[in-house]
């Protein structure tokens, strides 16, 4: 009887008689233990949440599986590539057209990225300049530069009388003084740069408050030549120091130049023995070879066809 009970395929039924186990039926204990194992696993994982004890197992299996997955992927890749060869001529042509259009668009975008970034920076600089010098500015772009063979250093900007401009207004950029408006049309204005040989600006050495006159030399500052201005001080005995900052002196009613706009720094000082005067060479802050965005100083509250940068940096 005992060895009968120990036979794995048969068991005693409820009536106490021996009956063979149905083929394919699992032992109840093992089935139950497997189901319980599943439930325990689920509970552990669910209760554990973020720091689940099952995560250790996940990590081990993941580590072991990673090279297998990589290998299978490497093998499968060329096979999957086959489907890429199966296209109709039409769909390929369409793809090429679409991609070419997209390419052109992206190339265009790429070409203007630097330009856009620089323009944004200039606008920011102009706003800062308006705050710094304390005047309202009409923003304008340089749209034309006078040819060098005319020997006058002028530029055309895209703001005119409609923007509130008139002759004898100061033009500045984010870096410093640019020049003054000499002529206006309804939509454009001509600006005489301070480096023009005809230009004379009242200047003041910031450290000593001595005043003098800044004369242009006609050099635009391109082709390797640096743009430069000559400063002749009224007080002949005063010698400006190298590196001193020079600002505008200013005229009555702010025309043609308003006061306090930075012009440049003293680069070198020459003494003339003959007439015993001091001549200082000023390096302007503004790079006249790369002028783009400028601001025209206008009285606050000027009517304009565009936004005016107010002294507090706000746009109106």
């Amino acid at each position, binding site marked *: 009887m005992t060895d009968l009970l120990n036979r794995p395929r048969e068991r005693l039924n409820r009536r106490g008689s021996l009956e063979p186990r149905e083929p*394919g039926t699992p032992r109840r204990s093992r*089935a139950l233990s497997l189901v319980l194992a599943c439930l325990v*696993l689920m509970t552990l994982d669910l209760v554990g949440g973020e720091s689940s004890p099952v995560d250790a197992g996940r990590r081990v299996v993941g580590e072991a599986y990673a090279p297998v997955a990589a290998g299978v992927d490497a093998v499968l890749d060329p096979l999957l590539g086959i489907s890429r060869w199966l296209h109709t001529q039409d769909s390929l042509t369409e793809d090429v057209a679409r991609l070419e259009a997209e390419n052109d668009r992206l190339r265009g975008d790429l070409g203007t990225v630097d330009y856009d970034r620089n323009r944004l920076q200039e606008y920011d600089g102009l706003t800062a300049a308006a705050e710094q010098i304390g005047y309202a500015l009409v923003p304008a772009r340089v749209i034309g530069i006078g040819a060098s063979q005319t020997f006058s250093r002028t530029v055309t900007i895209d703001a005119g009388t409609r923007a509130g401009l008139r002759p004898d207004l100061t033009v500045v950029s984010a870096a410093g003084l640019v020049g003054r408006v000499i002529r206006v049309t309804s939509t454009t204005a001509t600006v005489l740069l301070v480096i023009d040989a005809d230009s004379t600006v009242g200047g003041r050495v910031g450290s000593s408050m001595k005043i003098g006159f800044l004369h242009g030399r006609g050099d635009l500052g391109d082709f390797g030549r640096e743009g430069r201005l000559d400063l002749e001080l009224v007080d002949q005995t005063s010698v400006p120091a190298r590196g001193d900052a020079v600002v505008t002196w200013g005229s009555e009613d702010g025309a043609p130049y308003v006061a306090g706009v930075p012009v440049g720094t003293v680069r070198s000082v020459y003494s003339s023995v003959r007439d015993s005067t001091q001549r200082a060479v000023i390096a302007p802050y503004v790079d006249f070879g790369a002028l783009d965005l400028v601001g025209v100083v206008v009285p606050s509250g000027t009517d304009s066809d565009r936004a005016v940068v107010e002294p507090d940096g706000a746009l109106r």
Partner: protein
Amino acid sequence: MTPSLTSTRAAAAATVLCLAVVLQVSVLPHLAYRGVAADAVLLVVVAAGLRHGSEPAMVLGFAGGLLLDLVPPADHVAGRWALALLAAGYVSGRVSGRFTDRVPHRDGRPRRTVVLATVAACSFVATSLFALTGLALRDPLVGVPTLLETVLVALVSDLVLGALLVPLVIALDERLEPDRVLA
């Protein structure tokens, strides 16, 4: 171990199971329809059930399900596939047990119709159970219509792959130990 699982057989079963996991995780998703890939592991479990009855199939189902629960892309509560494939192993074993006496096997193999019917039943049971545990545990919160659709698509894809894979696994098993038919 059960008498039907000798150590060679256990090693072979483990190898086939691992291959099935690789197949299911890395290869079959490329052939997926509506994102539902066939369950290679389930098919191996079904083959084991048809050949050796419920108990080995349940052990195999548990092991294979556990692997599927832990292998990297899986992010569900661990144990869900284990439970689902456990049930599949039980069902396939029972089906084979019921049909052995009445449906004669050709060369000791179950008939194709029996194989396909078992695959369909097991696929339905396993995928539904997996979906139901998901609903109960609120694991991925999806609606019932989505679940039903997934279960059906899985059933069809399992049938397609099963018609190929289950006879292959059974033939492999016979070659390993030709004298044994059903436990």
